[in-house]
């Protein structure tokens, strides 16, 4: 198993040729490989969408759930078995749209999971409606006058909520993205990686070229522990420049650590009903 594809498999996909998701998949395999993780240690959860097909193409445990709901099963599984490396991966519509409330709550909880958002700024699988991250004015069949909303800025949102780890990657920079994902997976706490992912079929505005012209790597001296710096980066106008890298980082206790129940290891698979049940029942004796 000396390379990512041998370890994590190579599958036929249902993506369009040229889709940025191929590169995300590649980076994800590379990251997991370099983190020395093995398929059975990993649980990938996802919602529904093009990006959400990712776990179908990666040899590991998988829970492919409902549209918008990649995060709740990830948290449930992590609480049941904190030893699993849990990664939720889905699209921008799935995680920032339908599932927005779960992301908000997850950031406040800070479970030790990684959230990868393949952000193509459009709804891919349903054929090209505007997504929360579509730029205002982005024209589609469903929004012939252009998206009528302000675009969602996931980085500013997450930084404002003091999310434990906030990063932005770009599908066009596989090695950099792989390094980011690797760091996100090793980070203790909720790690959000917003991944700019060109959709060659439905997004003719935010193309490879468009990203290439704007993306830059955060300088090596950049300090992600500064909230103010992070917020400045987060608020850069994407039409002008787009920073890639770990933008914000804050060490905090994880959600799982707050449960004494989990101190002796996973509750999943534990001997089911111990003698404690007798004393519990006895509390109701009269």
């Amino acid at each position, binding site marked *: 198993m000396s390379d990512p594809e041998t370890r994590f498999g190579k599958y036929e996909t249902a993506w369009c040729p040229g889709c940025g998701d191929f590169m995300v998949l590649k980076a994800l395999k590379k990251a997991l490989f370099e983190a020395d993780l093995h*398929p*059975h*240690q990993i*649980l990938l*959860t996802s919602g*529904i969408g093009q990006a959400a*097909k990712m*776990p*179908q193409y990666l*040899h*590991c*445990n*998988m*829970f*492919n*759930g*409902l549209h918008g*709901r990649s*995060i*709740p*099963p*990830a*948290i*449930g*599984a*992590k*609480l*049941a*078995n904190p*030893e*699993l490396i849990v990664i939720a991966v889905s699209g921008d519509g799935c995680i920032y749209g339908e599932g927005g*409330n*779960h992301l*908000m*709550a997850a950031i406040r909880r800070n479970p030790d999971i990684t959230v990868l958002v393949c952000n193509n700024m459009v709804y891919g699988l349903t054929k090209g409606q505007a997504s929360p991250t579509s730029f205002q004015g982005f024209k589609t069949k469903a929004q012939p006058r252009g998206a009528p909303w302000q675009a969602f800025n996931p980085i500013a949102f997450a930084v404002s909520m003091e999310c434990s780890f906030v990063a932005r990657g770009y599908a066009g920079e596989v090695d950099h993205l792989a390094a980011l994902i690797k760091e996100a997976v090793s980070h203790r706490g909720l790690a959000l990686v917003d991944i700019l992912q060109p959709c060659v079929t439905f997004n003719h505005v935010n193309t490879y070229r468009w990203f290439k012209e704007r993306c830059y790597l955060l300088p090596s001296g950049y300090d992600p522990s500064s909230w103010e710096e992070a917020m400045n980066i987060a608020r850069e106008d994407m039409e002008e420049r787009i920073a890639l890298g770990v933008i914000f980082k804050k060490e905090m206790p994880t959600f799982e650590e707050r*449960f*004494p*129940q*989990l101190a*002796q290891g*996973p*509750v*999943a*698979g*534990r*001997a*089911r*009903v*111990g*003698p*404690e*049940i*007798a*004393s*519990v*029942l*006895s509390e*109701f*004796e*009269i």
Partner: protein
Amino acid sequence: MLKSNKIIDILIGGEAGQGLATVGSLLARSLASRGYEILATQTYLSRIRGGHNTYQIRAGLSSPRSPGEDFDLILALDRETIPLHGHRLESGGLVIGDQEIVDASLAGTMAVPFREMGPSRTMNVSALGVLTHVAGLPLDVVESEVRWAFSKAGGKILDDNVAALRAGYGWAEKQDKGRRGLPPPGRKKKRMLMTGNDAIALGALASGLKFCAYYPMTPATSIVLAVTRFSEAMGCVVEQAEDEISAVNMAVGASFAGAPSLVATSGGGFALMTEGVSLAGMTETPIVIAVAQRPGPATGLPTRTEQADLNLVLYAGHGEFPRAVLTPTSVEECFLATKRAFYLSEKYQTPVFVLTDQHLADSLATIPPLPAETGDAGPATADPAEVQAPYRRYALTQDGISPRLLPGFSHHLVRADSDEHNEEGVIEEDPANRILMHEKRLRKGAGMEQEVMEPHLHGGEGFQTLLVCWGSSRGAVEDCIDHLRSEGIMASSLSLPQVWPLPKSALAKWTQKAEKVIFVEGNATGQLARLVRAETGIESHGMITRYDGLALTTGYIVNALKGMI
């Protein structure tokens, strides 16, 4: 109405915030610890203070099945109690209230000078003192309950309350209104005291519950509070989710990972969970969903009771997949049905419901001790060593049940998919595969049909009229049967603790012996009656329905039966 002299009925009425539930539960506990069997029920409004609530206790030498409707003792903590319930005083009964509320000159009333007994915040405990004497309870029994209840507060609060209790008792002793007490209980049997919701929580914990997610919603919240209370001792993770959608999806994820999981909610919250129920059906993930009904539609009457979400629970979730719906008929059965729910859901790897209502959820009753069985009550997982790679999570089998492995516990990979999938759990859109997988899932339903909980027949095998009911109304229906039989009417009842799969053969067997089959349901449209007709063709000859937010009672049913039989 049939009422033996071995039963006493007590009603306490008052505003939220007056300590009504405190008096009620202390009295209930005292009666139970003295050795009586009790059943206590509550009605309350959707507010934290004010309004008019009641706490009712029926106590006796044998277990009361349903709440009383006429009262031996009425304690009025507010001005509304007497106008609302005064006419329900038994002859010879006693109304107790502050002297500003009740008219001391009337026979059968006790006008109490509560103000003289202590500060107003302990007035409820003074009233308990009066009740203690009148109900013929030894002071020390009640006092030790009061001490237990206020032990955490301690100090002056404890002392004030004990003093208030004694003051009330002492005052009552000096009156010559007699006592309305029960005959002394025999040798005290071992008993437990709990609510329907407690029993569900215990049933879940006794089944190896390891994960519980919820979003607060009356009348389901107290299930989760009871689980929470024991969660650390039992190694169960409990999490309040951001919404019901998250609760059910978290629970499905936790269960997938290997933690037997529970969610608890009521109609509106459950409506939000229905997509997740379908997910559990498709991914074949065990999950138990406790739905405590309250009257809808929408917010409806949030603190009252109804049985109108049977259809919702039967058909919730898009697409077709197997499920079971358990409808416990008593506090004790809440425990048993919940255990059954975990057993079925883990065995058949599918969602299973425990469907109750506010009436049962909040009913506090003495029950025989519950068994403290230990052991591996949880999921039957396969031995990873005996499973061939690649592991087929959805292997096609004769009974539709695929050997289950947990992710991370072996080198096998566990792959679950909400899309239609092949045996390995990979998305597959081919029609031939669809047929195989769809039929595999539905076969599990056929399996569950072979092991339904049988209905309870009451009244004996000889009858002309058969009343059929489900869930919480059993007690009232059975008391009604006893009443009818005491009047020479040949009626029996069949109470269903499980409505899906439907116990078809028992229904066929008993209904065909009846001249008249009458369904008794806490809803307006007769949801069980329709289900039974759809599934078996059995016709009902009448329907007794109730949908005013209150529980079905013996008197209500007897009344409605007039002219029907």
